[in-house]
């Protein structure tokens, strides 16, 4: 849990400076334009506070997060689209700032994982099921002619003994 993470950072005391109980958006940051503000909130939730442990700038009260929140709102007020704001931040801080990594050669495997695993296991299971339901498998549950003869022979021997 997050709390274990906190416990962990206690152990590695050097990190404890990076811990913040979150306070996020301050009243003075909020934009008067409700539409812009809600866009800012949505964007903030997908942007990483780079000095925090896995927190978005929307969740964190670190000074850097506040700077980024103000920056996002400034860009939005200047008329930038969501994509332009993201591009602006990526140009400044690298892709590390995006909590939802964009599809690229480096992340294609990441995004395809659910489908690949699903397809992989699905194919395996389908093959198994077909094999299981095939006449051969069903026949495998019954005795072959050869086995039947051997069973009879054994039974006959036991009968002879008794």
């Amino acid at each position, binding site marked *: 849990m997050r709390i274990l993470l906190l416990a962990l950072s206690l152990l590695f005391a050097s990190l404890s400076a990076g811990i913040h*109980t979150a306070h996020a958006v301050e009243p003075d940051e909020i934009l008067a334009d409700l539409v812009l503000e809600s866009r800012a909130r949505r964007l903030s939730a997908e942007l990483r506070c780079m000095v925090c442990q896995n927190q978005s700038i929307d969740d964190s009260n670190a000074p850097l997060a506040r700077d980024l929140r103000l920056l996002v709102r400034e860009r939005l007020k200047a008329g930038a689209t969501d994509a332009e704001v993201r591009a602006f931040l990526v140009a400044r801080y690298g892709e590390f700032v995006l909590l939802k990594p964009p599809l690229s050669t480096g*992340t294609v495997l990441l995004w395809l994982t659910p489908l690949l695993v699903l397809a992989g296991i699905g194919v395996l299971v389908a093959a198994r099921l077909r094999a299981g339901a095939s006449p051969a498998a069903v026949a495998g549950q019954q005795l072959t002619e050869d086995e039947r003869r051997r069973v009879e022979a054994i039974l006959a021997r036991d009968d002879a003994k008794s």
Partner: protein
Amino acid sequence: MITELGHFALLLALAVAVVQMVVPAVGAHVRDQRLMAVAYPASLLQLALVAGSFLALTYAYVASDFSVENVFLNSHSTKPLVYRISGVWGNHEGSMLLWVLILAAFGAAVALFGANLPPTLKANVLAVQASIALAFLLFIATTSNPFLRIDPVPADGRGLNPILQDPGLAIHPPLLYGGYVGFSMAFSFAVAALIEGRTDAAWARWVRPWTLAAWMLLTVGIAMGSWWAYYELGWGGWWFWDPVENASFMPWLAGTALLHSALVMEKREALKVWTVLLAILTFSLSLMGTFLVRSGILSSVHAFAVDPKRGIFILVIMVLFIGGSLLLFSIRSGTLRQGGIFAPISREGALVLNNILLAAATATVFVGTLYPLALDALGGGSISVGAPYFNLTFGPLMVPLLLALPFGPLLSWKRGDAAAAMQRLLVAVVVTTLAAAAALAWQSPGPWLAPFALALGVWVIAGAVTEIAFRVKAGTAPWPEVIRRLRHLPLSSYGAALAHIGVGISVIGIVATSAWRTETVVALKPGEKLEIAGYQLEFRGTAPGTGPNYKELTGQFAVTRGGTPVTTLAPSKRLYDQPRQATTEAGIHVGWRGDLYAVLGDEQPGGAYTVRVYFNPLVRFIWLGAIVMFLGGALSLSDRRLRVGAPRRAKARALQPAE
């Protein structure tokens, strides 16, 4: 003195672990009863020694013996007694000792209650358990020894992070570890089965209660952590897709799959190889969770370098156990005979679908958690994989799982009738549709998907009720017959239905609070009001106060609803003395519609305070669902047929190896 005894007990436990690992395993190999019998006293002695060691450390904490470095670093004399005790596992060394203690307890439980196990299986299981204990005891003794002394003795300790000074800390880690370590039972049984080259229904019957118990502990452990984060971290978040959370969530997902596949194995002798593999993978994920948390590799690559010895040690443990068991699996799994064939549309088929989706979900969380590390290590640059990724990938995988869930229990084994199941679910379909329509009509503007997601939870609950109704022939048989059937329905059927209802309840809570949460952030002066979700909050001002080891500033909010007083909320900001750190204590009002959650922020110029108020609709359903899942598991566990040792005579004889 007591500390030295604890240290000594730890080292003795290590020696006992060596004996318990080697002697019974050799005994099982050469079929020597006396050698195998060593496992019994060894595992009990092991528990006694580790417990003694743990108690010695606890004593050092309670007595505030700061000559022990671990106590000095993590405790303080002014800390309340309960947090001095829970502080034992609030740090790395102590928590590893707790890990081994729980492991030893599980091992002793096999020794005590495993009288009906075939002797060789029991000997091998205990030997495998001992090998895990040995690895972790070695780890503690060489890199994380909590019994080291310091000289000169400091006057007082450094104290515990105030965020961890909470009743939650007392319960959360032991529950979580109980789950993690509990899966070692499934692992040990799987490895023992591979060594012996045989598994059967009786094996599954043995593994299932242990897995179920571990799963129950992990379920409430995760829920507990989530609840704790919710009220302690001060912004009402309850799940963050944080790597450390994911580390506990992966074993839970795999363990859930294991529970269901072991069911197929027990009832139908099918899915043997898969179940054994899943048992290995589930515990491997637990080990990996321990590694990820304990090495610090996830929170920071630098933390890994702070003490590379620890990280590398756990990495070696992981490679040995996971690699070793998977190697054993690849060599020996061919010897496990497959049984029971079934049609795709059948109870088995439904459980296979459950396993496919849960496996894909586990893989998604796994890849999402480790991808940034892997990419960085391969020179692909640093990226972040956060909540938006998991919501986009994990969420869609849960939809078919929840949609299909009610069908499973209504299909018969071997060959089921989907149309008949659908017919039985007709009432559930109607209820679900009504729920979706009501939610759609109720939400003014809102995410259009939310009502349908909410209805999924209703669907799962209605499906579980339908299953019980079908089993007791409600509506088709006369009432006395229905009541007779209700009384005779096995507890495990009720347990399964209840656990599924718990899933539905959690889904409803998750959807409602994610989709319809409202929030107000304003600067308020005393006497000013704010309004949220139908409540009016009047800020009455702040008052300072002191606690045992902190000072606080508490805000007073009078809450009214339509003019009638509801409650007073008193969120506070605390400043702890040792270590000096601020925390936020939220003021929470629990209502039937959801939680009113108030946080007091910083003082603004002019006497105003930043005030954050959230309304989290139905948020309690998330944890309520987890509790219901736990109760379902408990009900199932108390079923006579599942209870360990219940079918003693017949099973024990059937299990004797044919020689």
